Structure formats: structure tokens, C-alpha cells
């Protein structure tokens, strides 16, 4: 019996070895395990390792010659000590994780290679340059950094004076990063959560034009339409004047834009985005009317009853920023569906309305109410998922759609070559309550590490066991078992990881 146990355990060891080595050769572009503080290469008996590698290689050669070639390449690379990391290297490689690209689906066990502040390559077979900074994200999930539309209090300063006011060590900035945010809009400015530096913070200004179009102020609506009509007439005149001029006809002076509202002019010229606040169906429908009359880019904040007119919102091309958990009761006097529903986001998505998600509190709250502020933005989106929104769409809402609303979708919002290297690496599904952001990368620099930042390091500490640690653990377990088995008459206890067996035994006793 002793021999049998030992045999099984030895088999397990060999199997583990093979699995780990096979994994290394299946994905030979993967670098070896994360650099350990202990020099690993010297400690190992090199002969044994070589033997095993040969074994695995033979198996692989039989299966896939190409992979084996790459394994050789990997080996060659290993000889040059690829673990040497240059902290000033322009390259940052995140490897071993599942990459949620947003635009190009999911890449399992892929590599994101960043150079300076941009993403250079994304994929499975990428050679990591020598000396590159690395993050071993094996078993983790990589997402584009989340974006906070219309936040407050996460960054200090606004507009063009952002740089002079920015606090790159602020507590709220740290907590924003811990919550997965890498970019926030605050006031009219958009700022990266670039910790520890004043460079590369300011992304731009939204240039939104606030339009009040509420059913409670008919006078205001009339004035707005009046102003818009004037602007439209002016634009028509200009167009006709230009056509006449190009036809060589006698034209007078160019029409003057004097007296026109410059913001409204920018809206109808397509140079700016209109911002509305509307929750009720009534207001949303009248905004739809307005947008049909004066087509323009628009974002509507609130949208609690948007699900009831999702089709129309889709047709006028409006963007929304919604809070899935915000509640509004149905209007009993209305002969139409109204009120709040958890399906709001799902219905908007079905009708092709792009939207972003905002929690009930637009700031970071450290005073309780966990899950309702920017510290847990994905939690708010999780409620939309609960209401039927596909998970991909929820991720899109927090990243690319938000970037689109901010007008910076060409720079951020997805994991694509050429985009800004703003990423978060989570230890699980983004929308799971258990998940923490383990690392945040902004502008190609690691700016948050859960183990280092003092906020959540104590909750489920990250443990990445090295190959040596796993082997030591197995050897220790072997020795212990040997000692235990020597006590001959100890009855065979059911293994902890074999609950079926234990269950069988219990039922036998019954």
C-alpha cells in the first residue's frame, strides 16, 4: 500500500511537471514564469530539467512541428536570460491573461505588449523584447481601463488649468484606479489617472453644449428652438452663398453669424455634442422630437424611462448615460409604459442605443454605501447584466461607448494596437463582486498594484506560486504522507479533494 501511494504521488509529480512544461511549449511565446527573488536557474539540477524538456519536446514534435520549433526558439531566448528586466525599458508585456479586447473578442492566454504609452501588439504569439517590463497575469483578466463619464471629485482642477491643479498622489485618484478607472471626465476636462506624474494627464475637453429642454419650462424650449432656427437659417444661407460663389454667380457679402449663439452654431455644424438631462418619458420624447428637427450629436444623462422610447432614441442617434439602479415609479396618469426597470440597459442595447453607465454617486465615497459610487462602477453595470444586458455590451458601455460619448474613441476604450496603453488586470470577471483590480496601467506605466497600495492588499492577498514553490510543496506533502503511512493501521481517510468518495462512504454507513 505504501508503494502504491508513493507511485501515485510520483505519477502526480511527473504529470504536474509535464503539464507545466507542456504548457510552456504549447505557448512558447510565453516567457518563463515570473522572475523570482530567488535565483532559480542555479539552484535547479540542470541535467534533470534537460531530460524532461527533451521528453516533452519529442511529444510536441510528433504533434506539432511548428510549436516545437518555437519551443527551441524559446529555449534560445532562455539562454540569454529573458528574465532580466530593465525598469526603464519602453516595453511592458502583460502575459498569461485572458484579454478582453472589446473590439476583437476574447483572446485566451494572450499577451499585450505596450511600447511607451501605446499598445504595440495584442495576440497569442508575440515575442517579448529583451528587458521588457513584465506583468505575469496568468489566470487573470485584462480589460481596457474603465472610463468615468461626468465624475466629480476624483481629480482636482478643471479645464486648461488641470495640470496646475492636478494631484497625482491624491487618495481619490488611487481609489479610482483601485476601482478600475483609468480616465475620468470632470467638468469639461478629461484626465487620465496618471499616478505620480503631471505629464500625459490632460486628454482634452469635451466641449459639450448644455441644453435645457424640459417640459417644466415651455418658455425655455421655445427660446432654444427659436435660436436653433436662426442658426439653421444662417447655415442654409451660407451654403447657398457658397454654391452661388462656386458657380461664379454674382454674390453679395458672406452671411454674418453675428447675434447667433456660438454654442448652438457648433452643434448644428457638427463640431460639438449637446448634453441633456432627462429622465421621464415625456422629456425624452420631446428631446427626440427636437433632435429629429435639428439633427446633432447628443448625450442624455439620466434616461430612467428610456426603455419606453428606445427605438426613437436609437433613430435620432442619441447617446445615453444611465444608472441601472436609479428608481422612478410609473406615472399612473400616463397612457404609456413608464417608470423604472432593471431591463432598461438591455432594451437600449437591443435598439442599438449606445450608452455608458454611472453609479448613483458620481464620486468616490469612502463613507460606506459600498457599491454605489465610482469605487465600484462595474457593480452598477452588473445590475444591468442582471437585467439581461450581455456582458460584452456592459464592458463596452464602460469602455468604448463611454469613450465615444467623450469623443476619444480613437485613443482609448479598447485593447488594440495603436491605442493608449490604459489597461486593468483583474483577478476574475470584472462584473463579479469578488473581483479586485490587481494592477492598473495608465500610459504604459503600472500605476496601481493591489499588493502595494495600502487599501485592499489585506483582502485575499495575491499569491503567485513559483514552479519551485509548487515542487517544494509536493515534496513536503510526499514526506508527510510517507511518515503518516508508516503508522500502518491508520484507516484510509477520504481525500479532501475527492468529495464523491467521501459521500459514497457516508451512504455506505447509512
Amino acid at each position, binding site marked *: 500500500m505504501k508503494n502504491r501511494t508513493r507511485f501515485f504521488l510520483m505519477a502526480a509529480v511527473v504529470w504536474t511537471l509535464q503539464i507545466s512544461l507542456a504548457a510552456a511549449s504549447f505557448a512558447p511565446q510565453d516567457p518563463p514564469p515570473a522572475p523570482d527573488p530567488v535565483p532559480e536557474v542555479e539552484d535547479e539540477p540542470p541535467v534533470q530539467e534537460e531530460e524532461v524538456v527533451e521528453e516533452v519536446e519529442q511529444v510536441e514534435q510528433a504533434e506539432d512541428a511548428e510549436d516545437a520549433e518555437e519551443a527551441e526558439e524559446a529555449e534560445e531566448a532562455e539562454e540569454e536570460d529573458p528574465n532580466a528586466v530593465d525598469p526603464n525599458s519602453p516595453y511592458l508585456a502583460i502575459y498569461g491573461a485572458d484579454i478582453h479586447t472589446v473590439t476583437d473578442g476574447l483572446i485566451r492566454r494572450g499577451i499585450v505588449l505596450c511600447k511607451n504609452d501605446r499598445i504595440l501588439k495584442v495576440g497569442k504569439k508575440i515575442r517579448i523584447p529583451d528587458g521588457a517590463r513584465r506583468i505575469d497575469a496568468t489566470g487573470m483578466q485584462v480589460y481596457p481601463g474603465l472610463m468615468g463619464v461626468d465624475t466629480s471629485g476624483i481629480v482636482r482642477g478643471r479645464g486648461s488649468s488641470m495640470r*496646475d491643479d492636478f*494631484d497625482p498622489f491624491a487618495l481619490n485618484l488611487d481609489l479610482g484606479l483601485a476601482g478600475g478607472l483609468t480616465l475620468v471626465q470632470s467638468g469639461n476636462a478629461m484626465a487620465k489617472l496618471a499616478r505620480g506624474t503631471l505629464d500625459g494627464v490632460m486628454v482634452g475637453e469635451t466641449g459639450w453644449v448644455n441644453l435645457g429642454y424640459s417640459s417644466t419650462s415651455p418658455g425655455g424650449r421655445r427660446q432654444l428652438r427659436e435660436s436653433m432656427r436662426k442658426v439653421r437659417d444662417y447655415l442654409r444661407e451660407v451654403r447657398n452663398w457658397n454654391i452661388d460663389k462656386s458657380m461664379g454667380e454674382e454674390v453679395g457679402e458672406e452671411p454674418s453669424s453675428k447675434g447667433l449663439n456660438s454654442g448652438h452654431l457648433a452643434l448644428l455644424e457638427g463640431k460639438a455634442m449637446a448634453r441633456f438631462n432627462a429622465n421621464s418619458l415625456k422629456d425624452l420624447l420631446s428631446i427626440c422630437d427636437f433632435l429629429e428637427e435639428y439633427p446633432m450629436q447628443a448625450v442624455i444623462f439620466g434616461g430612467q424611462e428610456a426603455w419606453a422610447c428606445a427605438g426613437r432614441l436609437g433613430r435620432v442617434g442619441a447617446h445615453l448615460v444611465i444608472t441601472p439602479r436609479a428608481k422612478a415609479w410609473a406615472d399612473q396618469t400616463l397612457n404609456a409604459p413608464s417608470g423604472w426597470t432593471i431591463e432598461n440597459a438591455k432594451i437600449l442595447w437591443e435598439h442599438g442605443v449606445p450608452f455608458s453607465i454611472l453609479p448613483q454617486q458620481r464620486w468616490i465615497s469612502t463613507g460606506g454605501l459600498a457599491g454605489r459610487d465610482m469605487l465600484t462602477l462595474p457593480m452598477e453595470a452588473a445590475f444591468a447584466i442582471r437585467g439581461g444586458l450581455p456582458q460584452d455590451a456592459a464592458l463596452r458601455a464602460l469602455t468604448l461607448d463611454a469613450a465615444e460619448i467623450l469623443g476619444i474613441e480613437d485613443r482609448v476604450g479598447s485593447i488594440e494596437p495603436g491605442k493608449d496603453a490604459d489597461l486593468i488586470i483583474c483577478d476574475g470577471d470584472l462584473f463579479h463582486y469578488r473581483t479586485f483590480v490587481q494592477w492598473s496601467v495608465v500610459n504604459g506605466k503600472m500605476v496601481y498594484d493591489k499588493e502595494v497600495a495600502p487599501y485592499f492588499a489585506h483582502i485575499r492577498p495575491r499569491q503567485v506560486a513559483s514552479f519551485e514553490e509548487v515542487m517544494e510543496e509536493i515534496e513536503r506533502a510526499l514526506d508527510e504522507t510517507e511518515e503518516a503511512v508508516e503508522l500502518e493501521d491508520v484507516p484510509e481517510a477520504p481525500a479532501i479533494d475527492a468529495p464523491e468518495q467521501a459521500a459514497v462512504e457516508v451512504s455506505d454507513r447509512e
Partner: protein
Amino acid sequence: MMIASMLLLMPTALPVAQEPTRDPVGRATVYRFDTVETLDGEALRNVTMLVRDGIIERMGQAVVVPENAEVYDYRGTGKVVMPPITLTHADFLHSDRRGGGRNARFLAADSLWLAEDWASDLLEEGILMVGIDPPGSGMPGRTSVLLADDQVGVPEPLVADLHLKVDVKGSSSSKRLVRDGLKAADKAIKSEEKAKADWEKARADWEAAQKKKAEEAEAAKKKGEGGKPSAAQNGDGKGKDDKEPPKEFAPPKMDPNIEPLVDWVRKERVAQIWLGSAADWLHWQDLVGDRDLPHQIILRHGTSQNFHEVVDQIAATGLCVDVVTSISYLPYTRTRVNLPAELIAAGVEKLVLSPRSSNLSGVQGFRLSVAQVVAAGLDRATALRAMTLEPAASMGQEELIAPLAVGAPATFVIWSGDPLDPMTEAMQVLSEGEVLYDRVKAEKEEQR
């Protein structure tokens, strides 16, 4: 300049303490102590110190005591001797709060508002020298240095005009103020340079003209009859050439608020840069760019206690760093940060410790907070230097408050015990051999 000011002060100070019967010249006083914290290496035990003319003439275990010497034997009492504590920012000594802004013309010494017994308040705490700052943010003025000797009435500052205070704590407006100030200083320098170039040219032209004229006159003299017409010619150009430019260059008048900044840009003056958080450090770097401006760093954290984020960067500059003596907690965490110790670990060589708050009660709790920081890991010897010698050096007074050694001024405090024990009291404060404060005497007087 320091010595000159000392010489000025001495005659006013000395006669007060002088005993009429004895000639102060050549008078020797001998002290015997258990422990002397020289602050230059290890503390000395069982020391005999011979003081003559305000200077430590001999110090050690085997010192011959002259016949007529006055001997004070403090052995066996546990008393400890150390150079006096020096404060760099004693804000409670003025109350003229002008606010901030660009007011570099103000001197802190001009806004003194002293309590009657301000000097004994300081001496009681073993403090001899204090720096005072103009209050406010931005560029509120220049700092001064005071000695807490027995001056009656408005004291004459030891140094009236020392450092330029530049406070860039936490707001973009003060950053803008400094940026604009530097621009104005550059402009003033440029216009002065231009004025000087103009003057030099004018002077050179005038001198050349004079020379030419002299030559012509000489030639005319030689010719004899030809002198007249040439003199007439000279008369034509009289208005232009004959007006002599001043012999010495007189620089154009400058805005008195810009002048100290100009000195600073020309590296003739040191500035104190006040920072409130790690972000301020980056903003200061942003502000100063590639300029090389002489400065010291004053760290005074507010709510965000995060200077530890940039200690390495600060240490790399090799500047003098003045920091509040306290253990800070990172906000919302139980993570403690011993900033003074971290600065030393990062390689800061010139560390100045300041009380947690610069009012009188803060000053009275200073030694306790230093003791706490030492208990939490700051090296004791470093801490003692950082509350005595280093602050004096940061104010350019390293000769006045120096390590206790042969040849150094006999300026020290006799403590009733370990100076870092909060129960310890300053028993006597001596400045250049003269007793400025004696606790026993003072308490007797108070009882009377």
C-alpha cells in the same frame, strides 16, 4: 556678515550679565558634567569644560583648573549638555498677518509682535535662536533670524533679511504667482542688462569723444593759429558729446517686490520652498523646470500625508529639507509613515526638524515629538543634530550654534536629564559663556 552682527550685539548684551568686581577678559569658568552631547560623534562622559572669553578653551577628562576659575560641578546630577535647540519657523512671534500674494518686499522682522516674556518662553525650552517667516502663501516676504537673548523692547534681529519665502502649497494660484514672479524677474534682469549695455556704450562713446577732443585740442595747441575753428566745431557738437554719462552705472529702479526674486534668479539669495503634499513637489519641479535656483525644501503636509511618495526624488537633489516632526498615518489606513526617518533613509543629509505646530504650545511639545519619531526609528544622533545644528546651519548660523568642541563658542543648554525625555527641563542656557537663562534663579524671582 554674521560675525559683524555678532560684534554689534555683544557690547549691548555683555554688560548686563557682567559682574562688576571681575574683569571679564581672561575670566575662566569650569564646568563639570556627566554627559556632553557634543553632536559631533559620540556623547562624552565625565567631562571637564574650561570656558574663557565665551570660547570652550579645553574640554576632556583631564583638564587643569586655573586657580581663580569659577567652578560649577554638575557631576552626579544626571544633567546633560547639548547645543541649544534652534527653530526655523517660530510663527508665534508675529501676528501681523498680511496674507500672501506677491509681497516679497516685506521682512518678517518688521512684523514682529512679541509677548513681553517671549525670550524667556523660548529659553525655558532650551531654544536660543529662531527663524521667523512672513505669514501667508505665495511670496509673502523674506525671513529673519532672532536671538532670544535678554533684549528689552523691540529686539534687533540677528539677520533681518535672510531667505525668500515661496509657498506653493496646494493651489494653482500660488503656482501661477511664482511663475509670473519669475517671469517678471527675468524681465527686470533683461531690462537692467540693456540699461547697462546702453550706459557702457554711452560711456565708451563719451570717453572716445573726450579723447578725440583732447587730441584735437593738443593738435590745435601745436598748430597755434588753427585752434579757433576747431573749438568752434567742438561747440557745435557740445550738446551731444559733452554731457557726461555717470561714472558709475546706476541700475534702473526695480519693483521692490521683484528685487528679491531677481537676487534669487541671480543665485545671490536662497529661497525656502514650502510644499504641502507630494503633488506640490511635482508642481514645483514643473514650475522651476531647468532653472537652477538655490533653495531649501520645507515640507508641511496637510490632509494628504504623502511626501513619502517623493522622498527619493527630494533626496536626490541634496537640498536641505525641513520637515514636521510627526508620525503620519496614510489617510483611511493604519499605515504609519515616519517621514523624517524615510527622508534620512532615502539619503537626505541636511535634515531640519520643526515642531508640529509653530505656536508656543507646539514648541513646548517639540522634544516629545522628536522622542516619538526617534522611538519609531529615526537615528537619535541625527535627530539631535536636526533640532540644533542643522536648523542653525540652514539659517547660515553654523558658527554660532556649533558642535561642542575645543575652540567652539560656549553656547549650550544644561538639561536636567536626557533632552529627549519630556520631563526634562532646561536648567541653564549659555550663549558664548554668558548665562542667559537660569531656571533656579528665574523660579526664585517668580516666587518673589
